[in-house]
């Protein structure tokens, strides 16, 4: 793990298989563990309840017409923080556990920094590095 960052359990919520694989690979390379990939609200909740991830990365547009914003809120209600990972970032979010958004296309190398920064913020810490690609709410 670089910069002594903790290895996190992460949930990826993404409906496009190739993008999900790319995100999973990038996060794994950064030393994190992807505990599941979901592409619907129901699947995300099921994995979250089972795995209790430290953080979720949510696309906004999901399979079967589901909405990543609703997923982020459902996860937040369970105490699980999230960041969006989307081509169209929501402009604002009111829930304290919905930290921010990384706009696609993203840079693989910075994705780990964005995850670490978001996790630090949820713990009330100051991020060691706040990448420009992460827009905070």
């Amino acid at each position, binding site marked *: 793990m670089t910069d002594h960052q903790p290895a996190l359990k992460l949930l990826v919520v993404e*409906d496009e*298989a*190739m993008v999900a*694989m790319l995100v999973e690979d990038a996060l794994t390379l950064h030393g994190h563990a992807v505990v599941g990939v979901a*592409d619907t609200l129901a699947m995300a909740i099921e994995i979250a309840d089972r795995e209790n991830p430290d953080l979720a990365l949510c696309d906004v547009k999901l*399979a*079967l*017409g589901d909405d990543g914003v609703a997923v982020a809120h459902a996860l937040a209600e369970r105490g699980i923080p999230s960041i969006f990972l989307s081509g169209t970032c929501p402009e604002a979010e009111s829930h304290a556990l919905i930290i921010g958004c990384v706009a696609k296309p993203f840079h693989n190398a910075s994705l780990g920094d964005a995850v670490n920064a978001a996790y630090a913020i949820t713990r009330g810490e100051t991020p060691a590095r706040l990448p420009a690609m992460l827009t905070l709410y």
Partner: protein
Amino acid sequence: MSPNELPDRSASDEPGTSVPQRYLRLLADVAERLLAAADPADMVDEIFDLMRRELRLDVFTNYRVAGDRLVLEAHGGLTGDQPAKIGTLAMGEAICGTVAQTRQIHHAISIRTSDDPTYAFVRSLGLDSYICTPLMHGDALLGTLSFGRRWTNRFSADELRFLRVACHYVALAKYRLRVEAALRDGMEARERLLGELKHRVRNALQVAVGLVGAEAGDLASAAQAPLYRAVDRLQVLAIAHRPLYGDQPAGLVDVTGLIEALVEDRAIPAVLAETAALAPLRVETAAALALLVHTLTLGVPPHRPVAIHLAGSQDVVRLRLVGIAANTEASRIARGLLHQLRGTITPATDGMILTLPMAHD
């Protein structure tokens, strides 16, 4: 013939037709012109032409609001350098500027004998009565519309009522034209942006193909295969997105056209043996299908192409791939794409059948 030379029209001109009836008919004509109008300035010109004979009008001016000033948009009965002198007005300046500021109708009477300084310009035109109306839509001031006469020192109560209604119609028509112009501008901007995005997407994919291809070219031949496979996949992706650049409904891709393009461009070693009328796919679904078919046909020699038979309905798409064995241990990419598509692969005697449910969201 100048308005002054026109005969005064009164109820006695047309037996059986009262002044209010003529005003109603005139209002109907005004409304008809306003509904059909396409240009704000021409529209007011036409309305003035319609009304001036009935009301014996000599002059009109029409200002629109531009920031904190009024700009003369249309006028009639002015000559020489007179329009230039009143080309712009500050709020509160002269009669129209005052009307714009107060948003109240102003009826100026006996102008020639008045020493009111705000009447100076209309007095210089020889006018003796003048009415200026604010053009409002809701709380928004759009401009002013005014009419003047030399031959009498005031407008009658009926005339004032008529002009107030006509000006209200003009305000509505101007608002409509303004909204239409904003919509047109918005659509043009959207078209330009769309064109730029299409160009950028095409370019970015082409650059990606070039970058990966260049990296592959620098490697030893044994290490080139994965990168050339990546190049192939990027090209498959480009083919799936191609319909977006044309005139097809936004975001929808025809399945038969997609398979035909993949075959035609030799992106997959296949022939299209049977087509069917199928519901179009969303572009992300089409891209996943194209990548999946490409993945399933990896390793098939070009001289023994797979025969693809398309079938299905509005609810399901079936691709029978003849001449290829169903792989029971699908690759990670194939598994991911199958999950995304909610698809299933079943073995057939002569190949495999890929079944995809159609999402109707």
